C-alpha cells in the first residue's frame, strides 16, 4: 500500500557553465490524502524546486530530473509532456507565494479561474464562469458574482490569495502544493488563509504540501514535517515529534530563530550563524557542518568528510534525521532547550 503521493530519491540538477547546481539531491517523502506535509528550510534549500518537479514545471528547461514521483501509483516522471499536462491543475494544483505576480494582470480573476476549469472539463464558458463564481464564494470572497469580473489589481492581497486557492481547487485536486502561500500577506490575513486551507482540505480530502520557512505555519498546519537543507532532507517525521524532539542541529537553529513573544521584549533573536551553502559546490561531508555549533561532539572528522545517512531518530517511530551526533536528544535537552525555552526545559526534567 503506497501513499497518494510518494516521492522517491528525487534529484533535480541544473547544469550551468560553472558546474552542476544540485538543487535537490535524493529527496524522498510521502503524503496521504487528507494529510499535510510541511516542507521547511531557508531560501535556496530546494523546497520550491523539488515541489515544482511534481508538476513537471522543469520540463522544457535544462534541468535534469530523476527519481520517482508516484501519484496514485503513476510515475509522473515517466509521462510525456501531454500526459503530464493532463495532470497539472486537475490532480495536482499549485498556489504561489506572491498572488499579485502569479495572476495575469490583463485578465479578470474570473476568466483566469474559469480557464483552469475549462482546460480539464468539457463544459461551455457559461458553466465554467458559474463554477468560478461558486469557487470564489467557497473561498470567502464577498459578492462573488460581481467580483468575478474584477481584475487582480482590484483585489486586496488576501483576496488575491483566496482567488488563487479557488483556481487551484476548482478541479478538486488530490494534491495541493502551496508554495509559501502566506509569505506576502499580513499576519491577520495569514491566519485566515491557513484556516481556509484547512477547511477546504477537510471538505475535499486532498493532500497538501505546504512550503514555508515559518515554523508557526508548520505547527498549525502540518501532520508531517520535512526539514530541507542544501537540497537534502535533514530531518523528517511527524510534526509533533520534530517540534518537541528535534535531533538535527539545523532544526534546532530554526527553532531558536523563532521569536518568543512571552519573553522579554528586548531579548535578542538567535539566528543561525553563517549563510546557506552554495548548491554549486556544497561543503564536503554534512552540508551544515560549517554552521554547526555541535561539531566538536562528533569524534574525528566525520562531519567534514562523510554525508550522514538518514537514520531513525532516537525517539523512534517514523522520525528520521541526518546527523552524526550519537546522542542528539540529550544535547538538545541539556544545551539547546534551556537556551531557547527555559520555562519548557524546567518543566521537563
Amino acid at each position: 500500500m503506497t501513499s497518494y503521493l510518494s516521492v522517491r530519491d528525487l534529484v533535480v540538477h541544473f547544469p550551468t557553465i560553472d558546474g552542476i547546481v544540485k538543487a535537490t539531491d535524493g529527496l524522498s517523502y510521502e503524503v496521504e490524502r487528507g494529510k499535510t506535509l510541511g516542507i521547511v528550510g531557508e531560501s535556496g534549500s530546494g523546497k520550491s524546486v523539488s515541489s515544482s518537479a511534481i508538476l513537471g514545471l522543469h520540463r522544457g528547461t535544462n534541468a535534469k530530473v530523476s527519481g520517482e514521483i508516484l501519484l496514485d501509483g503513476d510515475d509522473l516522471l515517466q509521462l510525456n509532456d501531454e500526459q503530464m499536462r493532463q495532470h497539472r491543475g486537475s490532480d495536482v494544483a499549485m498556489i504561489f507565494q506572491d498572488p499579485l505576480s502569479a495572476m495575469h494582470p490583463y485578465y479578470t480573476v474570473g476568466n483566469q479561474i474559469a480557464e483552469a476549469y475549462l482546460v480539464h472539463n468539457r463544459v461551455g464558458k457559461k458553466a465554467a464562469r458559474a463554477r468560478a463564481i461558486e469557487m470564489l464564494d467557497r473561498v470567502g470572497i464577498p459578492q462573488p458574482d460581481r467580483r468575478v469580473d474584477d481584475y487582480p489589481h482590484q483585489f486586496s492581497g488576501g483576496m488575491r490569495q483566496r482567488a488563487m486557492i479557488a483556481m487551484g481547487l476548482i478541479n478538486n485536486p488530490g494534491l495541493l502544493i502551496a508554495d509559501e502561500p502566506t509569505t506576502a500577506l499580513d499576519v491577520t490575513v495569514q491566519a485566515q488563509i491557513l484556516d481556509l486551507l484547512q477547511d477546504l482540505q477537510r471538505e475535499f480530502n486532498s493532500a497538501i504540501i505546504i512550503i514555508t520557512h515559518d515554523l508557526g505555519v508548520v505547527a498549525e498546519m502540518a501532520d508531517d514535517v520535512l526539514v530541507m537543507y542544501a537540497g537534502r532532507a535533514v530531518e523528517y517525521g511527524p510534526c509533533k515529534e520534530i517540534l518537541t524532539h528535534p535531533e538535527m542541529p539545523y532544526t534546532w537553529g530554526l527553532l531558536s530563530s523563532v521569536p518568543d513573544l512571552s519573553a522579554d521584549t528586548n531579548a535578542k533573536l538567535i539566528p543561525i550563524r553563517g549563510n546557506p551553502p552554495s548548491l554549486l559546490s556544497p561543503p564536503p561531508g554534512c552540508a551544515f557542518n560549517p554552521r554547526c555549533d555541535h561539531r566538536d561532539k562528533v569524534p574525528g572528522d566525520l562531519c567534514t568528510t562523510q554525508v550522514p545517512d538518514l537514520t531513525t531518530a532516537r525517539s523512534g517511530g517514523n522520525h528520521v534525521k541526518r546527523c552524526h551526533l550519537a546522542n542528539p536528544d540529550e544535547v538538545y535537552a541539556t544545551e539547546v532547550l534551556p537556551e531557547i525555552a527555559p520555562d519548557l526545559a524546567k518543566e521537563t526534567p
Partner: protein
Amino acid sequence: MFAYVVRRCFTGVIMLIVMSFVTYFLFFASPIDPGRFACGKSCPPALIKQTDKALGFDKPWPVQWKDFAIGVVKGRDYPEDPALRKSAPELISHCPAPCLGYSQVNLINVTTELKDKIPISVSLALVAFVMWIIGGISLGAVAALTKGSIIDRGVVGTSLVFYAFPTFWMGLFLIEFPAIKWGLVQVPSYTSIADGGVWGWLSNLFLPGLTLALFYMAGYVRITRAFVLESMSEDYLRTAKAKGLAPRKILFKHTMRAALTPIVTLAGLDLAGLLGGAIITEQVFNFNGLGKLAVDSTQTFDLPTVVGLVLLLAAFVIVANIIVDILYAVIDPRVRVG
C-alpha cells in the same frame, strides 16, 4: 474614458496651434523672400512688392499667422483686398477652408496639393505597416521560442542584415531584379483603387511596401523577441503552465498579450511618422506622395507647402499618440482606472 479622449483631443489641438506658430516663426527666420521666388528670376522690385502684397507676405508675421489660422478655419482669398474684390473679382482666387496657404511655386492651394498626395503615402505606409507588423511580431515570437538555437540566430541576424541595407539600395535592388530582370512583378507605379481596383492598388504597392517593411521589421523582431522572453519569465506564466494549459494557449493568450504593450507604442509612432511620407522610398519608386513633395518643396523654397506638410505630419503624430494611449487602456486594465 470619454472625458479622457476629449481631454486628449483638446490638448492635441493646442499642440497643433503651438506647432503652427513655431513653424511660422521659422518660416520668417529663414533668409528667403517668398515673393521673389513666386515672381521669378529677373523680377523688378516693384513686381516683387506686388506679389508679396497679393500673397499677404507684406504684413508682420504674427498677423500673417493670424490670417493663416483664420484661413484654416474659414478659408481665405488671395489677395485679401476689399478694393480689388469690388473692381475685379475675377482676379481673386479663393482658398476654401481648411486653407493651409497657397503654393506660389506649384500655383495650387496647399490643401488641394496635400489632398492629392495623402492617399499615395497613406497607402504605402499602411501596406508596409501590415507587412512589417505581421512579419516582425511572428518572427520575433519564433525567435523567442527557439531562443539560442540556429533559427533564433538566423531570424535575428537576417533581420539585422535587412536593417543595415539603406532603403534606396533595397528599393533599387527590388526594381532591378524581381521587377525588371526576372519579371516576377511589374515595375510599380501608384494606381488608386478607383483606377485599378483593390488588386491593382495592392500589387503596385508590394515592392515599395516591402522595401520599407524589411527596414522597419528588424526593430520589431528584436523588441518582440525581448518582450516575449521577458513575459515568459513572469510568475503568471508559471501559473498558466501549472493550470495545465496547452503551450499554444499559453503563448497566444498569456505571453503575447503581455508583450503587446511596448509593440503598440512603437508601432503607433512608426506608422505616424511614415504616414507623413517615406521620403527615400517614394523617390526611388517615383511615387508622387508626401515624401517626394517634402523634398521638392524644400528644394524650391516652397514655404507654404513646407508649413502645410509639417502641420500634417504633426497632426498624424498627435493623433497616433492619442490612439496609442487609448489602446493602452484597451490592452491593460490597470491603466483604465488610474
